[in-house]
């Protein structure tokens, strides 16, 4: 151990610890990037080339891979389906989580404590526990193979309610509700006109995670959807790997197209997303 270790870390030092630390950070960063890099590179190569050599740089086969894929599967349709399902489910879930959280935070009705405890307890239930029942329910509601079968259950999200309630209790003073009442606003109008703008940062944060959760959900569409024209992306990508059995270039391209929108969105929203992750952690 060198003397450097005893210097306060505010003094910039190039000790062995730092070199090791940077090496560790770099290796992990490479591990995170490499699989996706290989994915994009292989999406631009022909199957025969992928099968016989390791490719470091992109090739020229991208357009032809795309044409092969488009002849069998409409990725655009898959992206549209995913967007439609996720946007609708997210809007619904955010609205319902918002009013529920507001109801729990601002009104001291008799069953408040009990019902909130029930809501928290459901967070511990495994998501797949009732899937056999969900299938039968959608069957009797004639909702199998419909977007609604994926949208409706996604609107119930206990953790979103929990985080928004915390936010309301910290940032929405009861006096604002009182002054709204004095001005003659009804309770719902107070929520929509006064509370909603104030709690919108919390709603936006939760919206991201609700959106990502719905977009990436796999088991529900796998169980509930049957027509390929209605498949969201995860299911379509899964099916692609069966359809294009040995044409790896095409499958790599399909996966790339499923990852690309997430990458682009993250490039623009990363600060917001990373900030949103710790909102609950710091307070909790």
């Amino acid at each position: 151990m060198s003397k450097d270790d005893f210097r306060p870390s505010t003094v910039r030092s190039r000790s062995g610890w730092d070199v090791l630390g940077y090496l560790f950070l770099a290796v992990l960063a490479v591990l995170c990037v490499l699989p996706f890099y290989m994915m994009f590179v292989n999406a631009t190569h022909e199957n025969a080339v992928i099968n016989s050599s390791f490719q470091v740089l992109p090739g020229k086969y991208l357009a032809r891979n795309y044409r092969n894929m488009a002849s069998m599967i409409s990725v655009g349709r898959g992206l549209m389906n995913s967007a439609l399902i996720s946007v609708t489910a997210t809007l619904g879930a955010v609205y319902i989580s918002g009013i529920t959280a507001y109801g729990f935070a601002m009104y001291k009705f008799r069953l408040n404590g009990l019902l909130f405890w029930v809501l928290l307890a459901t967070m511990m239930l495994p998501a797949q526990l009732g899937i056999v029942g969900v299938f039968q329910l959608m069957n009797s509601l004639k909702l199998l193979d419909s977007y609604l079968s994926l949208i409706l259950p996604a609107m119930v999200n206990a953790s979103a309610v929990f985080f928004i309630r915390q936010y309301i209790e910290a940032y929405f003073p009861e006096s604002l509700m009182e002054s709204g009442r004095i001005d003659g606003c009804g309770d719902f109008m107070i929520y929509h006109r006064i509370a909603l703008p104030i709690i919108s940062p919390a709603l936006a944060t939760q919206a991201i995670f609700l959106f990502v959760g719905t977009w990436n959900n796999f088991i529900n569409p796998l169980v509930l959807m049957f027509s390929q024209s209605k498949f969201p992306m995860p299911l379509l990508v899964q099916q692609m790997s069966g359809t294009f059995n040995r044409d790896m270039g095409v499958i790599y391209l399909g996966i790339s197209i499923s990852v690309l929108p997430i990458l682009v969105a993250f490039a623009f929203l990363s600060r917001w997303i990373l900030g949103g992750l710790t909102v609950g952690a710091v307070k909790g």
Partner: protein
Amino acid sequence: MHKRRISPANKGYFFIAPYFVLFLVFCLYPILYTLRMSFMSWDGLSDPVFVGLRNYQRLLGDHVFRIAIFNTVKISLVAIVFQMACGIGLAFLLNQPHIRLRGQLKAIYYFPNLVTAVSLGILFSLLFDWQGGSVNRLLMALKLIGAPVNWKLNAGFMQNVISFILWLQYFGYYVIIFTAGIKGIENDVLEAAQIDGANRFQQLVRVVLPLLKPIVIYASIVAIIGGMQIFDLNYAIGTAMGDPNYGTMSMVLYMYTTSFVNYNYGYGAAISYGLFLLIVLFSVIYLRMTVKKEAR
């Protein structure tokens, strides 16, 4: 009709009603329906037959379910241990003010968390393909192996691949959570340790770890509950049958295959509840272990 005024507090019920209606219909009802179904035998076509506890008796003697429990626990535990270790280590490293590119590194580490699990599963399935997989092609180009290795026949190896993907998906998330936790530790405490001559390793083990412990315990209980439910990656890599030879079969995958591939809804429902009981059991055991240590 005489209209009664609703007391102000009770207006709260109107706000929470939509949530609970949806919850009753789309969560609670299916869960109870599944419980009822677990005492029945049903193929989805003929009428369900009540069979009492026979599904649960079968579950206790089912060797595939036992394999699925073992695989699930092994795959998730390996992933969780490395996730937590990396999460804590990196959070400590990235908290050193002189390390550069901290924000960018955190973003890179977190990115895989947002990527669809199925896409990651299929991607790695291709990378580890026997003939055309990039891993084999790279190892051959480097002359490390003479002929392609058929990784997918090796159950233990494919389990580790799934553990690796799980680790890749989640370690960045824990870096972010634990960084926030370390920021919550007063700077004075760390400075005092430095003045007392603690090097960075001692600071990490003696100061940061104990103060981070509640967050780590909470994070790992959530990770254990999630880890018991792995499905997407197993399905993408080993298909519905958990290839090779049940090597990638997980508990949820077994429930899915039983219910929706073999149309044995009653037994599938019993597997769901077996899984639920195991999750409760593991959570209780884990909390017992950690809380006892805390009391010492």
